[in-house]
C-alpha cells in the first residue's frame, strides 16, 4: 500500500519513489522503498506492480513529494490526475523537496512511519507557522482564479534528518521561489485567521522577544481598483509573550503599550516586505486577485496580473494585543 510517493526529474525521465507500509509487526510498521522511472506521469502504478508481490493500492496515499527539478517544470499534470481520481483523499499533502526526494524519503524510513512527512506538515500547520494546506486547498487555488498555489518544502539537515524549511511559491504550476520558514508566518497571517504561530523580534541591543500568536483576524477592504489597485488590510492579533529578555521592561501598562507598538511596527514591516517580494515575483499566493474579483465586477484575471507588480498598493494596519506575559515575571 503506497502511503507516500514522490515525483522527480532525472535525465528528462520521471523518477518515482514510493514508501510502502508493510504491517508485519504489531506496533511497528516496516517501510518498503521502491523506485521506478518512466516517461510520463501516469504509469507509476503499473511500474510499481512489476516490483511487488502484492498488488499496489494507492487509496490511502497521503503524501506526494516533488523534486525541485520536477516542480520547476510544472506539477499541473499531477494535480490534474489527483483531483480527478475518486480514490484519492482530499487530505493528501503535497510538498517540494529542496534535496533529492529519494534522500528525504529514505531519511524517514527509520521512523517506521510511512506518513512521517505528512504528519510533519499537519503538525506544523496546527501548531506552528505553516498555513493550512492539503490537496483540496491546492486544487482550489490551482483551478480557481486569482490565487497561486503554495506548497511546503522539505530539506535535509546536515545530520540527515528532515525539516520543513519553508514554502514554495508557484506561478501557475511552476515552482518559482522558496520562502523561508520565518517568512511563512507572515503569509499565514495574511491567508487565514491563524490560531498558532510564533515569531521572534530582536531589538537594537540584542534583546529578544518570542511571541506566540493565539488568534488573528484579517480583514481586507478594497479601496480602489482602477487605475491603481489599493487594498486596505486590518490585521488584529491576539498574542502572548513566550520568552522575553530580562532587559525589556514590561511591568507597567505604558511599557507594555510601547512594546505592542513596536511589535505592530515589526509585523507590518515584515508583511510589507513579503508582499513587495510577492509582487516582484508576480506570484499571488495570498489571493489578492481572488479578493478583488469578489469585490470588483469588472475584474479580469489577465488584466489584474499585468498591473499586479506595479499598480498595486497594499496598506496594512496591524493591531496587536498582548494577553499573557510569560509564566514568570
Amino acid at each position, binding site marked *: *500500500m503506497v*502511503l507516500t510517493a514522490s515525483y522527480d526529474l532525472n535525465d528528462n525521465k520521471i523518477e518515482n519513489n514510493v514508501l510502502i507500509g508493510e*504491517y*508485519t*509487526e*504489531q506496533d511497528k*510498521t516496516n517501510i518498503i522503498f521502491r523506485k521506478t522511472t518512466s516517461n510520463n506521469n501516469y504509469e507509476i502504478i503499473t511500474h510499481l506492480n512489476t516490483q511487488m508481490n502484492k498488488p499496489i493500492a494507492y*487509496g*490511502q496515499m497521503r503524501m506526494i513529494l516533488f523534486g525541485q527539478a520536477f516542480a520547476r517544470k510544472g506539477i499541473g499534470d499531477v494535480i490534474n490526475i489527483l483531483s480527478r481520481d475518486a*480514490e484519492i483523499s482530499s487530505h493528501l499533502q503535497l510538498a517540494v523537496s529542496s534535496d533529492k526526494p529519494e534522500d528525504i524519503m529514505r531519511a524517514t524510513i527509520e521512523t517506521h512511519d510511512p506518513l512521517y512527512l505528512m504528519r510533519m506538515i499537519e503538525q506544523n500547520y496546527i501548531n506552528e507557522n505553516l498555513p493550512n494546506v492539503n490537496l483540496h486547498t491546492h486544487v482550489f487555488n490551482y483551478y480557481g482564479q486569482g490565487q497561486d498555489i503554495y506548497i511546503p518544502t522539505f530539506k535535509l539537515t546536515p545530520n540527515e534528518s528532515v525539516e520543513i524549511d519553508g514554502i514554495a511559491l508557484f506561478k501557475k504550476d511552476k515552482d518559482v521561489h522558496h520562502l523561508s520558514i520565518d517568512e511563512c508566518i507572515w503569509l499565514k497571517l495574511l491567508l487565514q485567521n491563524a490560531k498558532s504561530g510564533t515569531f521572534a523580534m530582536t531589538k537594537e541591543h540584542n534583546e529578544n522577544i518570542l511571541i506566540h500568536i493565539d488568534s488573528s483576524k484579517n480583514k481586507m477592504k478594497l479601496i480602489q481598483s482602477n487605475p491603481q489597485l489599493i487594498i486596505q488590510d486590518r490585521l488584529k492579533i491576539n498574542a502572548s509573550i513566550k520568552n522575553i529578555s530580562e532587559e525589556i521592561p514590561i511591568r507597567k501598562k505604558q511599557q507594555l503599550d510601547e512594546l505592542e507598538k513596536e511589535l505592530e511596527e515589526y509585523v507590518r514591516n515584515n508583511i510589507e516586505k513579503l508582499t513587495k517580494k510577492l509582487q516582484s515575483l508576480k506570484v499571488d499566493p495570498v489571493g489578492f486577485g481572488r479578493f478583488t474579483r469578489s469585490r470588483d465586477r469588472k475584474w479580469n484575471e489577465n488584466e489584474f496580473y499585468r498591473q499586479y507588480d506595479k499598480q498595486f498598493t497594499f496598506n496594512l494596519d496591524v493591531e496587536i494585543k498582548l494577553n499573557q506575559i510569560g509564566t514568570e515575571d
Partner: protein
Amino acid sequence: MSTSPSMPNDSISTFDQFIDLCSRSNDFVTANLNINSSCTFIAHYLKTLVDQSHLEQLIHSLQNPHDAHEIKSLDQLKQYNPFEGSFVTNDLDKIESSVFGGFLLIQEEHKSDAFLLIPITGKQGLRTDNDTDVEFSVVGPKIGFIEDIDTNVHLVRMQLRTPRLIVRELTVGTISKTKVVMMYLDGIANPDNVSMMEARIREIEFDIILDTTQLDELITDNHNTPFPLFTTSERRDRVVFALISGQIAVSTDGSPYFITGPSTLFDFFLSPEDYYLPWVLGSFFRVIRITGVVFSLFASALYVALLTHHYEVIPKELLGRLIYSRQNVPFPPVLEALVLEATVEFLREAGARLPSRIGQTLGIVGGVILGQAAVDAALTSNILIIVVSLSALTSFVTPIYKMSNAIRFIRFPMIILAAMWGLFGIAVGLSFLLLHLSRLESLGSPYTVPFFPLRAKDLNDRFIRAPFSLTSNRPGYLRPPFLKRYETPKKQRKKSKIDEEGYV
C-alpha cells in the same frame, strides 16, 4: 372429531362405539357406582387423567347416607356432587373431549341418552414454580406463567381486577383440542382487532397445538418473514402492560407463553424493567438496546465490506492494525466472518440444548479457547473475533428471544451482500430490510408504526422511555376506543429552590 381430516375416517357415531374404542386403552376404567339400591350408575374415566383424591372425595360425598337415597337421576347426582362445572349432555363430541380432558363420565345403567360429566382433572406433573427463566429481569416482579392455562388466567386476573377484562375460550386443534384463551380489556382494545383475532383463531386448521408460539405462526399476517409479528412473553407484567395498552393477549393450555398483538417493531425492544427504573435510566437502557441491535446487524457486514472493497474508508491509524491482524489469514474476509458467525451460532445452539452447568463449560470452551486458538493458528484475525463476539453479544440485548433470533439470522445475508458489493451491498440489504419491515403488518396494523406511518404523538415511548407524566395516553396506533390511560397530576409550576429559600 368426525370431520377431522387428520384422523381415520371411520367415525364414531354411537356412544357404544366410543366406549368400545376407549376400552382398548388400559387406563380406561369402567366401574359401577352403587349409591343406593334404586338405581345404579356406571362411571367411566381415564385413570391417568383424573385426580385420584378428587375421585375418592366424590364417591365419599355421594355415599353420604343422608343424601344417598335421594339420588335417583343424573340431574340429582349433578346437584349433589361437590364439583363445579359438571354438566349433563348427550353430545358425543363434547363427551369425547371432556373424557379426554379428565372428566368423569357417569351414565345410568342401561340408559345411554344422557350423561353426566364431572370435572376431576388431575394436574400432577405441571410446573409449579413460575420464575421467569427466559425473560429474566433484575428489577421488578419475577412472576412468569406456567403450563396451565387456568393458573395463567388467574395470574392475569389478580392484577387486572376489573370486569372489563374479557376472557374468551376457544378450542383449536383437531386432535389436541387445546383450550385457547383470548384476553382483552373491553372498551380499551379496538373491537376490530378483537374480532379479527377471534376470526383468525377460529379459522385455524391444525391438528395439534403444542405451544402458544405455534399460534403465532398460524395467525400471522405474513408467513415468510423472520420477524415475529406478535410479541411472545412469559412475563406477567409484560402481558398485563400489553393488555392495558389495548393489545390482545392469547395463550393456549399447556404453554407458559402469551402472545400479544398487534405488535410493532419497537415493542420488541421494550423491557418491563424500563418502567421500574427512573425514566432517565430506562431511556438510556432502551437506547443502548436499539443501538446494540443496529450494531449487531451491520458490524460484521461492515467489516467484510470495508476489508474486501473499500479499504480507503478505514482511517490510516486503524488500517495498520487491521492489516497486521489479517496478514497471515489465508481466507477472504467473507469466509472468515461467515465461519466465525456460524461458530457463534453453533455455540448458542449447542448451549441452548444442554443443561445449564454443561452449558457454562461449553461457553468457556467455545468462547475463550476456540477464539484464542483460532487467532493463534492465524485462521482468523483477532479484530474480527472482537467484532463477531460483540455483535453476537449485542444481538442478545433484545428482551424477546424471538426477535434476537431474527436479528442474528439477518446478519448472514448482510455479510454475503457486503462481500459481493461492499457498502452498496449493505445499502441493498438495508433497503430491502426497511421495505420488508414497512410491508409487514401485525393483525392488520403496520409494523413500523409509529415511524411509518409517522405518529408523532406515539414517539415518546419508543426510542426512549418517557416519564409517566407523558404517557398518560395509550398509544394511538392501536386505535383504542378510550385513549386516556390515567390522569396526570395537574402541572404545578415548579419553583426552584433559589426562589424560595430564605426567611419569609
